[in-house]
């Protein structure tokens, strides 16, 4: 540490008539950044002619040069511009590049009362743009699918199968586990509360109708949105960042044909299958709870299940799945294509693909409820 003391930066000031000499010594280097800046600020000689003597400086780097430039600019206000003495030739380029005067605080955006209504307006127009983007993507997908139907070799079956494996087959275990647990929970809650009325038999109806019509498909789609929709957004987004999408375009290929349609088709096929699996797992969970928690004879459970599980309930659930999957996959693709250069925008795209697709799925579910009520299903 003794060596450090010897290298500590210092300014020795001597007055000579109407002039002053500032003799700098020690290490004017980065580790002393705060110290040398303080020194430069405190040394403000009230003199007309000032000489800054650099010959005593042991080591100098850009930070030291910056502090010296600051000292020169500040001292210059009192009279003539100070003279730098003993600046080594080799240091001249560094001093030339330094210009602390231009390093003023960049203007920061001011917060104003108008920001709130402005952001509401922006969000509304963005929501409009989102809706348009969704329809435009739908149109491009239909066109691409149409081209594929005319010439099936353009449909890229290997890619579809690959994505079917990723989003369908590999999602099956977690979907089964999750829906099984939810089936258990709904059944347990049903038995717990319905016991008070002695209506435990109806729990089977409750679980069946709920699972087939709503819970099965919603849970599966939400899982798919979190699992596959976000990964679509991230994949397509990082391809966009690395100019892979542009490379495809210059080869005369439409990214919708190559990247998006196979993903969307895979998800549209996988979602109803996963939903069916999920429904079965949930009903199994309910049966297990009925047997273990309520001592219900499995034969009775199956009998009630057969009565409650009509084909129309199953239909309601399964019809929704591909439509919702389409929305999830399209949202993922759209958010992916919106990614710009930064890592932050990639994260934002993945997040908003999940948030937007789950929101849209819930809205869609409400619309389906109205439709099915109207159809009397």
């Amino acid at each position, binding site marked *: 540490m003794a060596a450090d003391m010897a290298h500590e930066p210092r300014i020795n000031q001597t007055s000579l008539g109407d002039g002053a000499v500032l003799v700098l010594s020690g290490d004017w280097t980065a580790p002393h950044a705060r110290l040398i800046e303080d020194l430069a600020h405190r040394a403000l000689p009230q003199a007309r002619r000032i000489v800054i003597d650099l010959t005593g400086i042991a080591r100098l780097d850009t*930070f030291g040069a910056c502090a010296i430039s600051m000292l020169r600019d500040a001292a210059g206000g009192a009279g003539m511009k100070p003279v730098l003495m003993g600046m080594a030739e080799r240091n001249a380029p560094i001093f030339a590049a330094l210009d*602390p005067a231009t390093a003023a605080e960049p203007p920061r955006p001011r917060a104003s009362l108008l920001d709130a209504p402005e952001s509401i307006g922006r969000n509304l127009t963005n929501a409009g743009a989102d809706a348009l983007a969704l329809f435009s993507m739908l149109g491009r997908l239909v066109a691409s699918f149409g081209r594929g139907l005319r010439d099936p070799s353009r449909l890229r079956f290997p890619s579809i199968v690959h994505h079917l494996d990723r989003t369908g087959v590999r999602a099956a275990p977690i979907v089964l586990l999750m829906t099984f647990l939810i089936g258990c929970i709904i059944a347990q809650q049903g038995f717990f509360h319905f016991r008070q009325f002695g209506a435990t038999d109806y729990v089977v109806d409750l679980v069946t109708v709920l699972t087939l019509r709503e819970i099965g498909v919603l849970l599966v789609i939400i899982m798919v949105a979190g699992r596959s929709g976000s990964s679509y957004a991230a994949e397509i987004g990082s391809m966009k960042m690395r100019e892979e999408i542009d490379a495809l375009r210059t080869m005369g290929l439409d990214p919708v044909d190559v990247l998006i349609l196979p993903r969307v088709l895979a998800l549209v096929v996988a979602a109803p299958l996963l939903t069916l699996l999920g429904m079965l797992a949930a009903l199994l969970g309910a049966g297990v709870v009925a047997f273990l928690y309520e001592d219900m004879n499995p034969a009775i459970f199956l009998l009630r299940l057969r009565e409650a599980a009509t084909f129309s309930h199953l239909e309601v659930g399964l019809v929704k799945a591909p439509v919702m999957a389409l929305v999830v996959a399209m949202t993922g693709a759209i958010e992916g294509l919106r990614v710009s250069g930064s*890592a932050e925008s990639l994260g934002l795209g993945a997040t908003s693909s999940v948030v937007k697709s789950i929101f849209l799925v819930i809205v869609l579910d409400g619309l389906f409820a109205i439709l099915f009520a109207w159809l009397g299903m």
Partner: protein
Amino acid sequence: MAAVPAISIANLSVDLGGRRILDDLSLEVQRGEMVGLVGASGSGKTVLLRTMLGLLPKSAGQVEILGLPLERAAPREVRAIGRRCGAMFQQGALFSSLSVRENVEFPMREYLDGSDRMFRSVALAKLRMVGLSESDAEKLPAELSGGMTKRAALARALALDPEIVFLDEPTSGLDPIAAGEFDTLIRNLHDMLGLTLFMITHDLETLNAVCDRVAALHEGRIIADGPMHALLQSEHPWLQAYFRGERGRAVQWAR
């Protein structure tokens, strides 16, 4: 104090994916030296650089930066070494969510105690030195051209006035004027700060203008190590092909 070499590599071997990339390689760089590393694409130049920076595990051997073996150093020592080194990656590796100026200020804020004004001032000076203007300073990395990204990455590598600078193909993708300015800049910094430079480059002009010593990496080993003119005289067939190929000759004729 006995002269501790800036970089000392002894009997280094590195395997990647079951393949030996670097084989019993030794190299020493003294303080203040400017060493260029040449080698064919895929010969392991970047692997060597990344191993030196501690980013890749090594199978055998020793790497010491400023006399400190990185893998056995305490976190505090590694941090201290980090302050004294600057690295510039091939793709720039600028932080995409920060502006160019903030990228250059980032290491300063991490390692140094100083005022915002000083950091900003030094950051702008570094950017000016590498040839970027004040209007470029507030841009995000995604808005930069390839050459500007290189310059910004170099400015960040130089942010702390490091003692050792590692550069991975600093002039590739720069126009000849910019590459020439880069050579001058590196020489200036070397003169002023006593910079030690370890640079991977294919730019024969830069090797000529900047490097005191050139090391050639071939089949996992350093096959030649010496001043540029000594390598030009070398009889090794690969070196002959590298320096006396059509492009290499063009550079020599031009002089």
